């Protein structure tokens, strides 16, 4: 047998059939479902008189549309003021009931962002092939699962056939050697990677993240890295299984137990790329060169270290790039050459499937403890990734730290990452956000997003502008 990458291994175990041109059917072990990209798929099933192939492989929770204030959430579905959002959440519930699909409803305290809840419940397991009608499904690759986003037609296809039709991607290894400096996080690693290879750098590839700095990350940090593989253009990100992965999974509700755990964990230990496996492309980064990162533009690749400046379009020789920079700066209301530290913030958002897990909240709380949010900051909110993250944070007293510092403590959901609910960034306002996309209008019409780590967002909340987290006492 020739040597294989981790991606090759998972692909091979899930290959049902393959046509001459390479179009293959891949068996799907877990299908995660939320309310936005599924209604048309269920409708398609109904119209064709089809049933889910394997109902128990599906796992649903509403997350995009749901309100995050406690008052609204206590009213359940009735608390959703926007009638269109309410229909979507209700439709998910109706569809799950009709087709016998497990759903964590918005009133369940295990509910949350699907990419936080999946791993938390043990519904994400190493070696699985996982899909969801959501591009940030790449998150689950942190546990050694082949996971990626799909469109609604594919959601219907997976429901009906338990398979996905696709061609195999190429293998890319992004290796981050050495050790991160204090104050630098998984978010800074992945933003630095995207800054290096660009938002299309991973197109057509599955990216395996490896190297000493990735191995040193917690499983939650690894999820942050894989979450943003899609922002580098790769549908899927992967990280090899190690003892940390197994420790994370053991004992979770959907994970195997007893004898089955022994068998499974033995098998999962083999979920690493062979030492002599070849990758179509290899990208190398040195962890100790990575500073805290801040995006200044309208694409995640438009990123600079905290010590840097917003680029000056006049210095850019390539005319296409110059045009892109100009367009972005105009939208962002920034002047070329401005120091990143001089960017003032109106809003702070700590949350999203990228950075809303307990470690993220601990890191943010650590920075704001005993301090106050700057008076110039109009909105500062912390939105935990799930009800269980929220409960854990409250048990640790993090909610009190945030509230005393002047941040709002919200109920779990996608919230202002994409502003499908009422949490929207105002026009022309600058937001330090721990989310994943800084596209025009992403967090609200005319809103200006700067992507950062939780600690950097927290530090910006206190100062009212970006600060170098490494220089805080």
């Amino acid at each position, binding site marked *: 047998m020739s040597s294989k990458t981790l991606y090759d291994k998972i692909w091979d175990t899930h290959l049902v059939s393959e046509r001459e041109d390479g179009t293959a059917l891949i*068996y799907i072990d*877990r299908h995660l479902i939320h309310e936005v990209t599924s209604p048309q798929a269920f409708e398609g099933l109904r119209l064709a008189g089809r049933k889910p192939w394997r109902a128990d492989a599906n*796992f649903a929770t509403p997350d995009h549309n749901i309100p995050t204030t406690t008052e609204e959430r206590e009213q359940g579905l009735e608390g959703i003021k926007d009638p269109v959002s309410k*229909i979507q959440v209700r439709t998910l519930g109706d569809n799950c009931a009709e087709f016998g699909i497990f759903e964590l409803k918005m009133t369940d305290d295990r509910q949350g962002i699907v990419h936080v809840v999946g791993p938390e419940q043990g519904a994400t397991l190493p070696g699985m092939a996982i899909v969801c009608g959501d591009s940030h499904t790449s998150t689950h690759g942190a546990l050694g699962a082949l996971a990626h986003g799909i469109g609604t037609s594919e959601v219907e296809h997976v429901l009906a056939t338990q398979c996905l039709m696709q061609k195999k991607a190429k293998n890319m290894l992004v290796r981050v050697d050495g050790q991160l400096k204090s104050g630098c996080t998984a978010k800074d690693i992945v933003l630095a990677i995207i800054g290096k290879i660009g938002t*299309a750098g991973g*197109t057509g590839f599955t990216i395996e993240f490896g190297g000493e700095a990735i191995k040193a990350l917690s499983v939650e940090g690894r999820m942050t890295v894989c979450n943003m593989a899609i922002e580098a253009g790769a549908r899927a990100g992967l990280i090899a299984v190690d003892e940390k992965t197994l420790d994370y999974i053991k004992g979770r509700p959907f994970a*195997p137990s007893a004898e089955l755990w022994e068998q499974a964990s033995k098998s999962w230990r083999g979920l690493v790329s062979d030492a002599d496996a070849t990758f179509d492309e290899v990208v190398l980064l040195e962890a100790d060169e990575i500073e805290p990162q801040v995006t200044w533009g309208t694409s995640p690749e438009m990123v600079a270290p905290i010590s840097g400046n917003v680029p000056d379009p006049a210095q850019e020789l390539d005319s296409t790039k110059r045009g892109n920079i100009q367009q972005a700066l105009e939208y962002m209301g920034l002047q070329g050459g401005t120091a990143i530290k001089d960017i003032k913030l109106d809003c702070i958002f700590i949350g999203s499937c990228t950075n809303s897990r307990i470690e993220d909240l601990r890191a943010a709380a650590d920075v704001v403890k005993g301090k106050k949010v700057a008076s110039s900051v109009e909105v500062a909110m912390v939105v935990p990734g799930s009800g269980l993250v929220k409960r854990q944070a409250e048990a640790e007293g993090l909610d009190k730290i945030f509230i005393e510092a002047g941040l709002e403590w919200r109920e779990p959901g996608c919230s202002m990452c994409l502003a499908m609910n009422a949490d929207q960034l105002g026009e022309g306002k600058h937001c330090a956000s721990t989310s994943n996309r800084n596209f025009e209008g992403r967090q609200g019409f005319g809103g200006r997003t700067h992507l950062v780590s939780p600690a950097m967002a927290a530090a910006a909340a206190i100062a009212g502008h970006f600060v170098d987290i490494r220089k805080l006492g």
Partner: protein
Amino acid sequence: MKKFIVEKGMVLPLDRANVDTDFIIPKQFLKSIKRTGFGVNLFDEHRYLDKGLPDTDNSLRPINPDFVLNQPRYKGVKVLLAKDNFGCGSSREHAPWALEDYGFRAIIAPSYADIFFNNCFKNGLLPVVLDKAIISELFTEVEANEGYELEVDLEQQAILKPDGSKIEFSVDAFRKNCLLNGLDDIGLTLEESETIRSFEENWRNSAPWYFTTTSATTT
């Protein structure tokens, strides 16, 4: 699915790289539970001057006259000429739905984001990949000639220009066949039901830990 054989129509030049899915259709319109009706909100944040909301009468909204789609010469376009990494971002199929609903049948760009590219084929929308140099030439020609039309012939895998010259393109044999015949993926896959079932049985035996989820669902 709608068949795609030959489509001829006017071309809209969208001179912008990394057009993301929020640009194509902003999230507030994703709340619909239908597949149709997204065309009026295609490129919403650039097409209109105000903030768009679902269930509003779009004909009453202020139009952005500078946006290319609103220029009278581009009324009735069927082919979208775009730049690198078109469709990056979200997996929302609402992006191709909005393009198709507006009246686009084909896109021509140097590169696409993977998920978007895939979603197009499921909706009778053909994403053609051409070299940057050819794309750049097409931009010049479209902008210089009002009423410029291209004929996209999937069967021949060629784009016919007004001067009679042809540009060949490649496309997956399987996807081509599906588009030409308007084939439904699910129907095709279900023809392999027996293969899937036997795969599943073997997989259940070799990796039973992936098939144990029901007990957790009863809590």
